[in-house]
């Protein structure tokens, strides 16, 4: 096995181990319900984390995604409930908007040579601000089409379901993996992460790629917003606060380096599942106070990072001795 697959393998190993531990304590956690929930409940986070993976692989960061999700939801709710538009048209429209929004941030980052952290932070303010302006109230979406979409699911034995949005997340991951490893764009993303100046000298179209990366992140944040609006049947300007941090955490737990250039889209999926597992475990336990919940999440996060480092270091050392 190659060195670079180590973090990924370590992460998968940790996930499997901890799932086993959880099941030992709560046998119910093996039910198809829990597994189905893990996919459905984390669908919107997973989709946006795919975009975040590309951004981080290129050495950037996108803090705007949570706000974009909220904006998308509010926008959909407003145009569907007050505008009477068909959802499919609205979906297309909102995806165009969020993609353009991402591309614009990418353009500012590239052409004005401004740090991604700040540009996307401003983007976060702006997107959430736009959501407020559209509606501060939470707007329910009652369009029948939504009910139809929610009706699509695959029933697993034991009461679990693979829902449309859960399936969509898996699809997005699959496409993300293909883009990352099988397209020139994907290689260019890694190239940017390896060093923008070098990539430029090697003829990577830096401007186009940067804009593409943030456009992709915007697109996926938009898609995630659609999923979120399906998930909650509403648009709410205060929704998805802090999702960017969850997404970044998932990406990093998944073994991607924040400095860029190294990591895998598939790792992010495991990162998402690990986070979901932590939450499920805490709910199953059900004895923790609000503050112990936070402390435990922090500690588990720390433990995962430590374990990952440990496994990687051990394997490296072994290799050198071999």
């Amino acid at each position: 096995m190659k060195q670079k697959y180590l973090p990924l393998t370590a992460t998968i190993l940790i996930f499997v181990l901890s799932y086993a531990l959880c099941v030992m304590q709560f046998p119910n956690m093996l039910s198809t319900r829990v597994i189905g929930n893990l996919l459905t409940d984390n669908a919107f986070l997973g989709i946006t984390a795919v975009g975040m993976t590309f951004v981080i692989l290129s050495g950037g960061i996108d803090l705007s995604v949570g706000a974009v999700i909220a904006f998308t939801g509010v926008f959909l709710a407003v145009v569907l409930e007050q505008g009477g538009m068909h959802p499919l048209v609205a979906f297309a429209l909102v995806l165009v908007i969020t993609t353009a929004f991402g591309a614009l941030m990418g353009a500012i980052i590239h052409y004005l040579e401004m740090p991604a952290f700040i540009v996307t932070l401003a983007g976060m303010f702006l997107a959430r601000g736009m959501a407020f302006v559209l509606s501060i109230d939470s707007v329910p979406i009652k369009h029948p089409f939504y009910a139809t979409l929610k009706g699509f699911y695959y029933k697993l034995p034991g009461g679990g379901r693979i829902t449309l949005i859960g399936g969509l997340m898996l699809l997005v991951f699959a496409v993300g993996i293909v883009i990352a490893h099988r397209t020139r764009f994907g290689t260019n993303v890694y190239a940017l992460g390896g060093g923008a100046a070098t990539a430029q000298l090697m003829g990577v179209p830096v401007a186009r790629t940067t804009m593409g990366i943030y456009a992709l992140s915007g697109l996926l944040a938009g898609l995630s917003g659609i999923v979120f609006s399906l998930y909650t049947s509403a648009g709410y300007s205060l929704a998805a606060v802090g999702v960017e941090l969850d997404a970044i955490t998932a990406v990093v737990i998944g073994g991607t380096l924040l400095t860029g250039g190294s990591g895998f889209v598939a790792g992010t999926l495991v990162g998402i599942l690990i986070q979901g597992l932590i939450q499920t475990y805490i709910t199953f336990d059900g004895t923790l106070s609000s503050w112990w919940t936070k402390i435990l999440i922090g500690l588990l996060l720390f433990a995962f990072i430590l374990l990952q480092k440990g496994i990687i270091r051990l394997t490296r050392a072994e290799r050198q001795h071999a």
Partner: protein
Amino acid sequence: MATAKTYLGRLLPQLIALTAIVIAISMVFPGFLNLQIQNGRLYGSLIDILNRGAPVVLLAIGMTVVIATKGIDLSVGAVMAICGAVAASLITSGHSLTETLLATLVVGILCGVWNGLLVAILDIQPIIATLVLMVAGRGIAQLITEGAILTFNHPGLIFIGSGSFAGLPMPVIIWLVFGILVALLVRQTALGMLIEAIGVNRQASTLSGVLTPVLLIAAYVLSGLCAATAGIIAAADIRGADANNAGLWLELDAILAVVVGGTSLLGGRFSIAASVLGAIIIQAINTGILLSGFPPEFNLIIKAAIIVFILVLQSPRFRTAFTFVRLPRATGKPTEREAK
């Protein structure tokens, strides 16, 4: 003299931005520049900005040094909450003010040591290393206050939040002193240069004999100390420790302040004074929004627009485009946007 000049040159963009914002606000709200003496202290919107900006200024001072090492400290908001809670619980359980303050600062330092160890020794990426404390820290703070607002009436502690000295509110005095001390500390010793060296090239610095792990930890400790001070001020200001909300999202404001101050998130060159100005600029925007009387749903949009505007003005591209009014394609460097 020459250094004074370059120093001013370094701060010029921030000074211009601040002046522009002050002028803009005083056009919307004419009473903005009024200052008067009331209850033995200066009173007016300008003082409010300095006063309200205190937590972010303090956080930005520590954050600047951390960012100069190519790090970032997301935990400062949570550390503020922890330290506020510690201070409140100690003072209400009857400890003296000195004990309380010392213990609280020690807690801040410990938080910094924790972050520093993760970054420098365990080699965890700063954003994730500090995320651990950001998440868990607020829980710890709530554990101390048990989720409630822990109020206190100790006049000494309250004085730190709302007292005044020499006509200035105490928080302003504190951050002024802090800023000057830290600036002297880094510039009158070799710390500043060594920190910048680490931020630009950690490997080369280590090979040159710079004590990288210790300095890295020290940077996070300073940040923890600043956050502790900010936490004390925030608690003293409202006479209670609000573990749930103290310092919430202030880490983003602090980072923003550092960037508005012109320090690169990629590490290296930094200026404490510029970051302090950056924090004051952000507070001026916030206060301006409050004074303007717009409905609150516009707050974020206005803030975003102003910040983007300032940053665009500051961006290297924009500046070169202005100095070389010749062909815009005749700019100096290749795209030196080294992503690391």
